[in-house]
């Protein structure tokens, strides 16, 4: 857990946001993320993010489910507790396919949801800093990570020149923490630090 300095630029139109993202990136700044009120088509490409591996994980969870179901059922019905069901062979593959399918889907679905939560750092009681409350309403919030060499004044001016309606500098916790927003003083100190 470490606090870091960020420059935040807020835009109220995606048509302004896209060229700004392009300019900020070509100028060599590192965009930490852009928080938007709704999914914006093509923004991930504009930010140069790599393709998610979530579906590869999903495939692996799926085949794990398939193998679990098939090996478990076949062990039970042929070795552990063979039963004569309607005169069918003990190794009754067609009857097992629906269950195999269900377990495949269950493993893939639950596994992918959990992986997604892990990747997005989402869990009960886990808190993350909000750079701007209006990011959930109508504002596109671009967050740029600062290094020691970043000139914050120059950067905020640069963002304003590229259409940012609101800019500020925040010194905040980058990762997640377990706690409460009201008891935890961390998120609410930032404005003062920025002003100082």
């Amino acid at each position, binding site marked *: 857990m470490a606090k870091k300095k960020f420059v935040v630029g807020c835009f109220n139109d995606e048509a302004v946001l896209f060229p700004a993202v392009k300019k900020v990136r070509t100028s060599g700044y590192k965009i930490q993320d852009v928080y938007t009120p709704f999914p914006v088509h093509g923004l991930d490409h504009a930010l140069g993010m790599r393709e998610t591996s979530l579906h590869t994980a999903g495939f692996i969870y799926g085949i794990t489910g398939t193998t679990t179901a098939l090996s478990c059922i076949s062990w039970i019905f042929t070795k552990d507790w063979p039963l004569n069901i309607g005169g069918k062979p003990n190794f009754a593959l067609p*009857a097992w396919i629906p269950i195999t399918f269900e377990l495949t889907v269950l493993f893939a679905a639950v596994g992918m949801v959990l992986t997604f939560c892990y990747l997005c750092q989402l869990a009960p009681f886990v808190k993350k800093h909000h750079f701007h409350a209006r990011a959930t309403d109508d504002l596109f919030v671009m967050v740029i990570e600062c290094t020691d060499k970043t000139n914050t004044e120059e950067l905020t001016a640069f963002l304003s020149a590229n259409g940012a309606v609101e800019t500020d500098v925040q010194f905040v916790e980058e990762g997640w923490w377990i706690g409460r927003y009201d008891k935890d003083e961390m998120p609410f100190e930032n404005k003062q630090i920025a002003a100082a």
Partner: protein
Amino acid sequence: MMASIKLQFEIPAKMKTWSLALIGVGLVALLTGLFTKGFSSDEHEQVQFWGTLMYNTIFWTLVCNAAMFFICVTTLAMGGWQQSFRRIPEAISAMVPIFGSITFIVLVYVVVSDKHHIYHWLDHDAVAADPILKGKAGFLNAKFFLIWTTLAIGLWSLLGWRMRQISREADEAPMDAEKGASFIWRNTVRASLFLAWFGLTVGSTIPWLWMMSIDAHWYSTMYSWYTFASSFVSGMSLIALWVIYMKNKGYLELTGQEHLHDIGKFMFAFSIFWTYLWFSQYMLIWYANIPEETVYFKHRVQGPYKGIFFLNLIINFVCPILILMKRSAKRNYTLVTFMAVLIIFGHWIDFYQMVMGSLSKEHVSLGWLDFGILSLFVGLMIYFTGRSLASKPLVPKYHPFMKESIIHQV
């Protein structure tokens, strides 16, 4: 941008030569088959010839009709992405009257000339002595068969033609909001009419009448959906093949990987849908194990059709799920071409075992006649689809949803 795109398809000489050559080979096979088998005094030979014609012509009619189904479904769903290549399914669906006529002639001949070795229910004495067939006589009789077949093929052709006609308005002049809305509404009405009729025919009665009734005693409520899934996934593959061919010839500049990706998704998803129906039909019958029902699978799973039966499952399920699952595979022109050819072949084999598996249970006759007739239909399909592609602009450039198609991104 619109000014620079190629709207007029010039039929390449090579395509013409190849399609005519395929038709030639097919005609030779057809005539040879007709004289050695069709007019033979041996019933088995006759049944083989007419059965081969039946499954080929039914398969290609339903596949081409599936292209119109695709247009109507995407129209009702207010889809925009398919506009940049919609003239391809339109051109494929223009084959329905042609293949439909061939199907009509073959089926009418089979029924009128009383070929009860193909349709057992045509045999009046057998029906009179058989309580099950007597119970089905209201549906399985020559009169109903002929009327319903005529109506089905006629209305597919007519309603499909009306969909293609209205599409021409998108070539004429730009539409303002009011005109565009009325255009979309009229499209919606015509698409709904086609789909309602499609549901009453392809989705239910037609596969029962044309193919399932070969096993007059046996029935499966899954059968029509299964046939529909088979023909729709082949139809999507055929659209994919034409799109890629046209791209290779330098047409369809506005269609790209993004559109191919979505066509690939249809091929993938409906292969799985087909498998779902295949398996549901199989498992219920396997589980209940009632002789009246297992009679359909007996010689397919344990008899001479074993190889084809499982090959069918490998080509139509295992290959698509493994090869088409990855995003990059659906965006790869070579892989999609390969899979499209494989899927069409796989479902052709599927239709083969659905029809011939019931007509000649003792031995598999897959041979020169089957591939010859296939060549005839492929040749006809290429020749006439190419011609109807050339008869209209390749892009409906004033379609209200055109922009949506151009900027389509998956």
